[in-house]
């Protein structure tokens, strides 16, 4: 099955112009898609053609360019919403996933949290799903709590239940897929249990939407945030929310387009989703993300997931050949996404990444915006390889080769 998945998707490599690059005499092996993915020419061209043929602002221009821009922009919103199975008028364009989470932390959090309330996150969250809640708790007097991450890299639903049973949790904010460990969290189950305990759920889908089928109706969380630049698109984020909540919530950013009527002292708000889109939108970027989800849908998200799973399995098989390596995250590739964090005894991740770069193998080194998780793992930093449709088993071979070469440089 793995081999099938790879051969099916391997034709897609030709769509990514950057893969033609050579660095230090080697062809590019890009293994940092969990940070940001490369873009296929279909996405780049969708934006170009918008700029070259139809550019205009949306919703207000009575003229033809304005009409075309509006159709392209709102059409993209519809396809993006359909891609994750949610209503398009409940699907808000944001700056990135970070802003989407901050939107909820400000517009819902400031109005709904107070002393005695708790926000529950996990030790494997990305800073973008930690810091907004720290700030919101500071402002409201609510308390921030963490679900622990055990050795297995998998959350305990029993611990969740125990915390929920105390009755103070107002919101559970959890990543769908960890950007470090790759853990696929049971967000559907988490949302169900949270709701039963009277708490809302926000899911950070920054790592999930790019690499697996995501059905928001099935997950049934209250908020779901993700980011286009990891999903083959440009830098634009999405927030999907439940209608009643988005209706009740106060706006976040104030300005043009999000209003209905502006009086001197106060204003009334536009309909959803525009109530939460203040100022001129990233129109070209939304259109680019529309092209990206078209591209992913055509590839088939099941095939994308199979491809990621296959490459992860292959990496987990081959990387132990490197002496002194430690791998992190769940062992079961059915429970993890396409990311493999590792350390090598005697070599700091920074140096690993630097030496991989000599062979044009791009891996990340650092805390991956997850400092609390690094402390749980007992490391200052890790190296990390992550995959997308354009990666192949050969890329994993190149990584292993580069790592062995790095050990040699270090005289290990």
């Amino acid at each position, binding site marked *: 099955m793995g081999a099938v998945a790879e051969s099916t998707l391997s034709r897609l490599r030709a769509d990514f112009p950057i893969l033609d690059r050579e660095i230090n005499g080697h062809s590019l092996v890009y293994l940092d898609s969990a940070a940001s993915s490369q873009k296929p020419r279909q996405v780049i061209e969708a934006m170009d053609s918008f700029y070259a043929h139809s550019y205009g602002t949306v919703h207000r221009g009575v003229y033809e360019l304005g009409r075309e821009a509006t159709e392209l922009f709102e059409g993209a919103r519809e396809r993006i919403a359909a891609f994750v199975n949610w209503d398009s008028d409940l699907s808000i364009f944001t700056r990135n996933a970070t802003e989407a989470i901050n939107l909820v932390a400000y517009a819902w959090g400031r109005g709904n949290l107070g002393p005695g309330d708790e926000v529950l996150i996990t030790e494997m969250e990305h800073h973008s799903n930690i810091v907004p809640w720290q700030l919101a708790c500071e402002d409201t007097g609510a308390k921030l709590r963490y679900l622990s991450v055990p050795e297995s890299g998998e959350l305990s639903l029993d611990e969740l239940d125990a915390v929920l049973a105390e009755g103070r949790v107002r919101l559970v904010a959890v990543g769908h897929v960890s950007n470090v460990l790759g853990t696929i969290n049971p967000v559907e189950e988490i949302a169900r249990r949270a709701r039963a305990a009277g708490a809302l759920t926000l899911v950070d889908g920054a790592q999930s939407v790019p690499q697996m089928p995501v059905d928001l109706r099935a997950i049934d969380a209250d908020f779901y945030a993700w980011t286009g630049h990891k999903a083959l698109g440009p830098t634009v984020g999405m927030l999907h929310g439940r209608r009643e909540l988005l209706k009740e919530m106060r706006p976040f950013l104030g300005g043009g387009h999000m209003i209905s009527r502006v009086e001197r002292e106060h204003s009334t708000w536009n309909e959803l989703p525009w109530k939460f889109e203040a100022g001129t939108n990233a129109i070209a970027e939304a259109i680019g993300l529309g092209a990206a989800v078209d591209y992913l849908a055509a590839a088939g998200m099941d095939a994308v997931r199979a491809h990621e799973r296959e490459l992860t399995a292959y990496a987990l098989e081959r990387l132990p050949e490197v002496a002194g390596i430690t791998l992190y995250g769940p062992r079961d590739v059915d429970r993890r996404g396409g990311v493999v964090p590792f350390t090598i005894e*005697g070599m*700091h991740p*920074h*140096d690993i990444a630097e*030496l991989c770069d000599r062979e044009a193998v791009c891996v990340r080194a650092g*805390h991956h915006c997850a400092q609390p998780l*690094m402390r749980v793992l007992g490391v*200052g930093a890790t190296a990390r390889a992550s995959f997308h449709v354009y990666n192949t088993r050969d890329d994993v071979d190149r990584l292993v080769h580069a790592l062995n070469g790095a050990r040699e440089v*270090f005289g290990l």
Partner: protein
Amino acid sequence: MDALYRDYILDHYKNPRNFGELDPHDLEWHDHNPLCGDELGVHIVVKDGRVADLRFHGQGCAISQAAASITSEELIGLPVEEVAGLDADWVIDQLGIEISPTRRKCALLGLKVMRGATTGDASWPE
């Protein structure tokens, strides 16, 4: 031979000079590199206005550890007030390798904490 990971750099990384803690000490400082999470602390004993002894501790990449080790050797014996005058170029000179912008903060973290301990200045050396 590797242009960045020269033998003496790797030697300083694997066998850092003046690594550890000093108790009691007269001056101390601690800081980190926000980009990669590298941590470095320093203890200094002052005698007659000079750095009489110095130990650093923490974790980091080969560049940051080697730079701290090399810097520590240079600092011991120096009049405390002269530490303030050491700058980024001085560190990179001491290292004797070319430092890309990405690795610059790695190379400077050692001087940063040692200068911090002697001057209270928490900024990055320029």
